[in-house]
């Protein structure tokens, strides 16, 4: 069923990470992603691993989510590994025709894929523990300072909110149109790819027409409720930093500093 699609990757929970302020989480995630690229030595990689694992434990999410987050990107991971293994010059440890694997290649490849994996796993932690609505709120607040240079922070956030609101509605609508067209003899499940693509037209046209009508209605309804852009608007749920965010930011900062030190000062 189309309506079974769950929205985003959010896993509701009650952990320390779930309760962090979205701004702290976004900044913390970005900072740690940069820090991952500082990691060079085995010690540094161990610290990164420990930190990622620690965060997963704190989040109390099931461990299989780590694999789930990697699945969509496994091709890129394998490709990265392959490119490094086969193209880095150095001590040849294995050779077959023009393919040769070097010691430096294995070393370089593991480093790069390691970074990639940690990057993906850690940033999925953000979307796993933050509901899309809260995340939108956080992004709006973080973009606010850039309004002066023309970033439409409020408008972007409003667009995301409305999109989130209408995804279930439009999915339902798609399902309904599909059934209606199937009842009239449309076929969405067999035929060649080209044929199937062509069969989507009687689905997409009504869907778009109705989406535009909804957009029009919604605009009228928003205007009737005194919406006039972000200017002078307040929010019911204001974001506020707590001691937790202080702890989390300190932890990320500490890890970043340690990794930077290991990279350049040791």
């Amino acid at each position, binding site marked *: 069923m189309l309506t079974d699609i769950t929205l985003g990757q959010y896993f509701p929970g009650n952990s320390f990470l779930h309760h962090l302020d979205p701004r702290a989480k976004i900044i913390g995630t970005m900072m740690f992603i940069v820090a991952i690229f500082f990691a060079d030595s085995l010690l540094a990689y161990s610290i990164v691993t420990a930190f990622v694992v620690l965060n997963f434990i704190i989040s109390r999410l099931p461990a299989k989510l780590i694999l789930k987050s990697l699945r969509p990107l496994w091709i890129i991971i394998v490709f990265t590994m392959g490119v490094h293994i086969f193209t880095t010059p150095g001590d040849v440890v294995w050779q077959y025709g023009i393919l040769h694997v070097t010691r430096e290649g294995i070393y370089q490849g593991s480093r790069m894929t390691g970074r990639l994996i940690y990057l993906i796993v850690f940033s999925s932690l953000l979307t796993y523990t933050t509901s*899309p*609505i809260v995340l939108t709120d956080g992004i709006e607040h973080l973009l606010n300072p850039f309004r002066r240079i023309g970033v439409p922070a409020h408008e972007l956030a409003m667009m995301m*909110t*409305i999109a*989130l*609101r209408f995804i*279930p*509605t439009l999915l*339902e609508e798609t399902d309904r149109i599909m059934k209606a067209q199937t009842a009239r003899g449309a076929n969405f499940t067999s035929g060649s790819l080209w044929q199937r693509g062509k069969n989507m037209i009687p689905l997409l046209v009504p869907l778009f027409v109705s989406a535009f*009508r*909804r957009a029009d*209605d*919604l605009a*009228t*309804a*928003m*205007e*009737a*409720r*005194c*919406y*006039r852009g972000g200017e*002078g*608007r*307040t*929010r*019911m*749920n*204001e974001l506020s930093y707590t001691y937790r965010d202080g702890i989390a930011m300190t932890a990320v900062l500490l890890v970043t500093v340690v990794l930077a030190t290991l990279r350049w000062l040791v």
Partner: protein
Amino acid sequence: MSIPMIRLDHMSHIYEDAEGQEVYALKDISLQIEPGEFVAIIGTNGSGKSTLAKHFNVLLTPTEGTCKVCGMRTDDLDNLWKIRQQVGMVFQNPDNQIVAAIVEEDVAFGPENLGVPPDEIKHRVSDALKRVNMTIYAKHGPHLLSGGQKQRVAIAGILAMQSQCIVLDEPTAMLDPIGRREVMDTIRQLNAEGITVIIITHFMEEAVQTGRVIVIQNGELKMDGTPRSVFTKVDALKSMGLDVPAASELAFKLREKGIPLPGNIITKEELGDALCQLG
């Protein structure tokens, strides 16, 4: 004498059709609605009743004549947001008027736009949800609600703006009978609390529950009076292509057959009583 909630003076709304012809959507309408009234506007499709409603919160402005809400002229742009805060609007399609992905956030949308402080918004939202009996759904996603519940959320969104008047444009047209009853019960109760309610409807059984019925036909005001005075003119309503409540129609037909029933029956109960007294 208090200021009327809504006052129209010889108001017309003209638009150009596809051929560039000027068409009167509304023609020379004068009427006055007092604070606390419960008014139904009825008329066939295309009669101009929705156009009329859209003038009450400045989604449209009059082409001729004036429209005043709480004494403020709607064609004066300075009044725009004050009027929209006073007069809230509920639309036909419950899905297309909910903005946020959580019920309480949607109710908060209006007050947020008005720049109300956060603590005050929280207070208003919980109060509004209580008044429409939706408190337990505060954290739900709107797509999980029934049509009647969605309309009640939309009403709560207006209550949270502390509007004095609610205009409902066919709020029950897309609902099942249970949803219709939920919405009607809610707005009847709000009217009892002192809020002016104007409902546009196709359902005569809903119009009977109000205190005043206005009939619009071809953009003109045809009748304006109590439900009893309007719905007993069965012939006139039928000739406009409008229905009458089932009870008044049955009474009308029985009278035609020579059964001596009084001419002022509009509800089932009244019809029942009158028939029993014939005995």
